[in-house]
């Protein structure tokens, strides 16, 4: 038998030599051609503007929806969305800006502020919609959660304080799975909510954040190879009770699965108590990015679609009842993420 050659030589960098203009023309042309095939309506005189946007993975359903694509096209836009963790957008902000992203769309305001601090783009930010953190479980597990007082007797709320206490004491073995806080918004916002419970208030200093880290790490550590985006956790949840008894995510994910008929009949969503309403925030990096952000923030058809079909909240008046707390400032949240990371 032969062995696979260890690696064929490094490839050249021809593509870097090409100007971005050529690539833009190429992309527009290709999308025109693709449009011809898929039958997207094109208005003759105007060319579609293609924007490339980094988005949280949980927004992908909305952006891939044919109605969303058509509404953007009707406004002369083609949106290329690249799903990534919100904190990845922060860590890689400079690179993403230099390879031509027009806007970054993290799932919480904290991360948008961090991006603005790093890049100083002159376009402000837009907040088209939000969604609260929630817990997903299964009907036949409710009894156990209720017996441990983690779920309330009506089976609608998830008591985070009780969960933290029972898990720390070893009474509770059913672990809440979540995305990696170092990469993704929902995991990071769990740290915010858990630190609020442990601190009995929003954490106001980095020293407190670091002091709380060991207790929080005990909740995050046992979960195993945490996936870097929220949607991976949710798709694992959709595989069923044996794959994922208890998962953290956004209310919008559950609503979307309900709409599309993917939700198993015995799936249950619990309101996290306390929860965080994650305000999805667009940071435009250039003028096309700003036009995209403004459109999404103001277009009634897009907002209606996001709300009706994808369960996002398009107005503060529509936030479901529940206990909501604020996340710490970006600096304190960063300190907490750093202190909770495995091996730190």
């Amino acid at each position, binding site marked *: 038998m032969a062995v696979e050659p260890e690696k064929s030589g490094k490839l050249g960098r021809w593509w870097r030599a090409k100007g971005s203009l050529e690539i833009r023309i190429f992309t527009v042309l290709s*999308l025109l051609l693709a449009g011809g095939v898929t039958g997207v309506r094109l208005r003759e005189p105007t060319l579609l503007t293609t924007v490339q946007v980094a988005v949280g993975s949980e927004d992908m359903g909305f952006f891939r929806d044919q109605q969303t694509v058509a509404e953007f096209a009707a406004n002369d836009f083609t949106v290329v969305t690249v799903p990534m963790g919100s904190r*990845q957008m922060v860590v890689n902000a400079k*690179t993403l800006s230099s390879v031509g992203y027009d806007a970054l769309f993290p799932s919480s305001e904290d991360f948008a502020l961090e991006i603005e601090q790093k890049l100083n783009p002159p376009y402000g930010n837009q907040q088209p919609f939000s969604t609260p953190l929630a817990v997903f479980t299964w009907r036949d597990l409710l009894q156990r959660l209720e017996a441990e007082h983690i779920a309330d007797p009506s089976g609608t709320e998830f008591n985070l304080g009780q969960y933290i206490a029972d898990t720390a004491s070893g009474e509770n073995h059913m672990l809440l799975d979540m995305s990696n806080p170092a990469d993704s918004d929902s995991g990071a916002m769990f740290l915010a909510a858990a630190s609020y419970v442990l601190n009995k208030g929003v954490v106001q200093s980095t020293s407190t954040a670091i002091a709380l880290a060991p207790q929080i790490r005990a909740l995050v550590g046992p979960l*195993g190879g945490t996936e870097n985006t929220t949607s991976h956790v949710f798709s694992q949840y959709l595989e069923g009770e044996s794959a994922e008894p208890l998962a953290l995510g956004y209310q919008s994910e559950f609503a979307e699965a309900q709409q599309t008929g993917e939700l198993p009949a015995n799936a249950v969503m619990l309101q996290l108590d306390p929860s965080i309403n994650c305000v999805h925030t667009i940071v435009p990096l250039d003028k096309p990015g700003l036009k995209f952000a403004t459109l999404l923030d103001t277009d009634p058809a897009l907002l209606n679609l996001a709300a009706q079909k994808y369960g996002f909240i398009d107005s503060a008046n529509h936030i479901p009842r529940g206990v909501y707390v604020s996340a710490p400032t970006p600096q304190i949240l960063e300190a907490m993420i750093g202190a909770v990371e495995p091996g730190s």
Partner: protein
Amino acid sequence: MLAPCIVTGCTSPHPAPPPPYTLRVLADSELAGMRPILARATAATGVTVRLVMTDTLTLANDMTDGTAQRDYDAVWLASADYLDLYASGPNPLVGTTPIMTSPVILAVRTPAARRLGWDHGSVTWLDIARAAAAGRFTFGMSSPVTSDSGLSALVGAATAVAGRGAALSDVGARQATSELAGLFAGQRLTATTSGALAQMYLDSLARSRPAADGVIGYEADLLALEARAPRGDPLTLVYPSDGEISATYPLSLVVTASRAATEAFFRLVGYLTSKSEQEEIMMATGHRPVLGSVRLARNLPGHLAALRFPANPQIAADLIGEYFGKLRPPGRTVYVLDTSASMTGARLSHLEQALRALTGAGHTLADEFSEFRSGEEITFLPFSYGPATPTVFSIRAGDPRPALAGIRDYISGLKAHGRTAIYDALVRAYQITAAEQDREDTGRIDAIVLMTDGENDWGRSLGAFLAYYRSLPLSSPAPPVYAIAFGEADIPELTQVASATGGTVIDAVKQPLSVLSGIVEDVRGYQ
């Protein structure tokens, strides 16, 4: 391209082909079986995938040092768990999409499965560990250092044995140590990649010298193995009831990818995750679909319990350390070293350097894991006109330094002269191994590593060696020969040696001598 037209009723008889793009993808070698699927994707999407394969460890290094971001558009891993262990710094992968999944399970020779009662009813990893500890079950597993499936098997078994369904903690790992040592007492075969392991195992079945009762690996690979098993020696797949760790084969864009690459990437991903391609992948490669709407093929049982990989990479790293230091019987290797006249100068000094690197002073986890380990037994057998006197070094568990220093001294003393009697030396290596096995039968994994730069021009011929090998009693497991060939080595002859003994040829004939160190390090994955 015809089928979608029928479904959607598109009017154009010749739809414009999608714009061509060549996507440069750095991939785990465990994805080698996907080439035919990717070739089909080109016709449908216009995206040509230039797939560069490497082992999991090299891939993690390329991500850490920035090679992946600089030279590639996308990275295709078997699982992301490995990166947590070896890559450091911020995660450079975005747009991550799992393409398919496969759990770590066992393939067991059917008579052995019947004997152990594993062909029906439920079996736990603990049952498997106890059978191995009692000497009733032996197996092969690829190296947890270089291969994702080896690491998943090690962590999966440890997690299941430590129990409770949560990811492994350091306490759990310590509690599982004795049971795990029992399990790995049964390991008889290892290799750098899962593909190499499967091939070695198949070869051993075909030669009626089964290297072990079974192998641990990814379901997709084991289904292929089952299909290729000799008719008279079938395999039975065993799914431990306490759960499996699964690979999810995530395909990701590097954060530095251009807009054109990004657009091509999503075209490819859309194609691979379409219902028809998910079905095609499942039928052609035995990987499970990521789409819930695809019905599982009849040979893929549903409702598997999931085990989790530990979040803290240190726990997996410690486990690998334990695996080599404590859990698995230490290896026993004979290094058969060509010291004929042609080795004089640069060749000998590169050979010395490559071996010296295994005696310590490595900086990365990868270096550390390829070094000579506590408890290992290393024999050097230089040859020219014939084999010289063998010199044995045992690495003492408590204090490895004297043996390592001894090895360094010994290596510096090598001298080149004379002719190249490869086969006389190999026969001697088998005699040494047999004598060691008689002296101490503790289930060590034996290996013979041949390093040569020339053709056999003295002593026994290839034919005489093969006749000798065939005369070895079937009861004694004769170790494979891993031949590292450079200079003017005879690749066709060495290939015959490797295939007869179940080993491998690493062909460095056309490569600079500087690759020797890396190759010697790689071959450690077989020991």
